[in-house]
């Protein structure tokens, strides 16, 4: 999780909204990529879950886009995707072939925690009251998302005692 070239002290509400939209875009894209990887590696349950997460991220992105359009119309965007790195998108190394739905949910949970930490760390630096209110709202949403995923995790039956590591062969001579 990192940013490049963002001055949080001078961030305007329009830029903050754009940033929030880009964060959702990045997460949506990563979940879609994860779903495709799971499909390719015959892990359909995790693929379904990652698709659901991608849908949720896109829904949230659309809500933010609507707010942005209402407040600022078609004003050109000053922030770009290149300024953010894995804010809400789960890290690339969070997935494995044959991961269980529980592991997939744990990966999503870790990314919600990560996004929460991002907003939490940024808030004290912000000067604009509107931006501060937006970041506080986003921070609280991450808490809500975390609770949702935690509830879903609790509903899952425990993973099998056999892990995918048990299927890894010791190196055999060739």
């Amino acid at each position: 999780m990192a940013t490049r070239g963002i001055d949080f002290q001078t961030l305007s509400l329009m830029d903050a909204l754009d940033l929030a939209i880009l964060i959702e875009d990045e997460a949506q894209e990563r979940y879609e990529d994860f779903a495709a990887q799971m499909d390719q590696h015959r892990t359909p349950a995790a693929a379904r879950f990652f698709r659901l997460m991608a849908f949720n991220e896109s829904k949230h992105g659309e809500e933010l886009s609507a707010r942005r359009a209402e407040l600022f119309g078609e004003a050109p965007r000053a922030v770009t995707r290149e300024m953010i790195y894995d804010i809400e998108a789960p890290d690339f190394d969070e997935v494995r072939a044959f991961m269980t739905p529980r592991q997939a949910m744990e990966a999503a949970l870790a990314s919600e925690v990560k996004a929460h930490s991002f907003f939490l760390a940024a808030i004290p630096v912000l000067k604009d009251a509107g931006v501060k209110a937006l970041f506080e709202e986003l921070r609280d949403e991450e808490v809500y998302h975390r609770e949702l995923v935690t509830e879903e995790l609790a509903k899952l039956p425990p993973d099998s005692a056999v892990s995918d590591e048990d299927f890894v062969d010791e190196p055999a001579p060739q």
Partner: protein
Amino acid sequence: MSATCEFQAKDYKSSLKPIWCPGCGDFSVVQGIYRALAAIGRPPHEIAFVSGIGCSSRIPGYTTAYGFNSVHGRSLPIAQGIKLANPDLLVLAAGGDGDGFSIGGGHIAHLIRRNMDITYIVMDNQIYGLTKGQLSPTSQKGRVTCTSRFGSLEEPVNPLLYVLAYGAGFVAQASPTDLVGMAATIEEAIRYPGFAFVNIQSPCVTYGEEAQQIKGLKAISENLAAMGHNPADRLAAMDLAQQYGQKMHLGVFYRNPEPAPTYDGLVRERQAALSKNAPPKEQILDLFIKK
């Protein structure tokens, strides 16, 4: 050559879905390349991306640049040919540690001494992953694999020291543990006027050892700029490069403050000079025809 204009990272992402193992470090590397190319701003059709053979050598296909997934170990000679044929292209070469430092090891020296304006990205995972986990030239001594049942008896190649010793003008290391740094390092390598080498510690999630995964790499990472390393100091760079395998230094080890002219540039100059006295194209055949 067209003027640079605004491109975004997504403009360099192809519609082909990577088939690397989920969690592979190369997913981060390709993202770093998209971002670096966006920062450079050259349109995809002005970029040629050549690779050898291996998991990481699939990378050109995942970009919108012209790509050539070539022959094992031969990405550099092919990249060199492309650069000489069309010097206006931005030429990248990529591959794994086996591709670059085993079968292709002999080519590196010559691109370095010629200072070809090519950026060479090696995804170093210390294993032959595509062929299911054999020793590679950068595997640590003692490593147990299917071709070393009782542990490797060989010392690994040190890629950083290797290229520094041959006189490379730009030598850097990056890792998926620091995405911002990786994209910035690749960008800086591309901007360097000459042969630029970036070693990326990219973990193999299937055959790599625990210590070589992201968490393990984070534990041994140190940022060269934060350490106060002067990238103009070649001897200091060589000193730090000796810690390859124990420490993971990230950033620029060496950037020649006075880069030598590039071979492709010199060839262009020579062509321009010789063509002044050359007969017109229409008369060239006359030289070979008896009248």
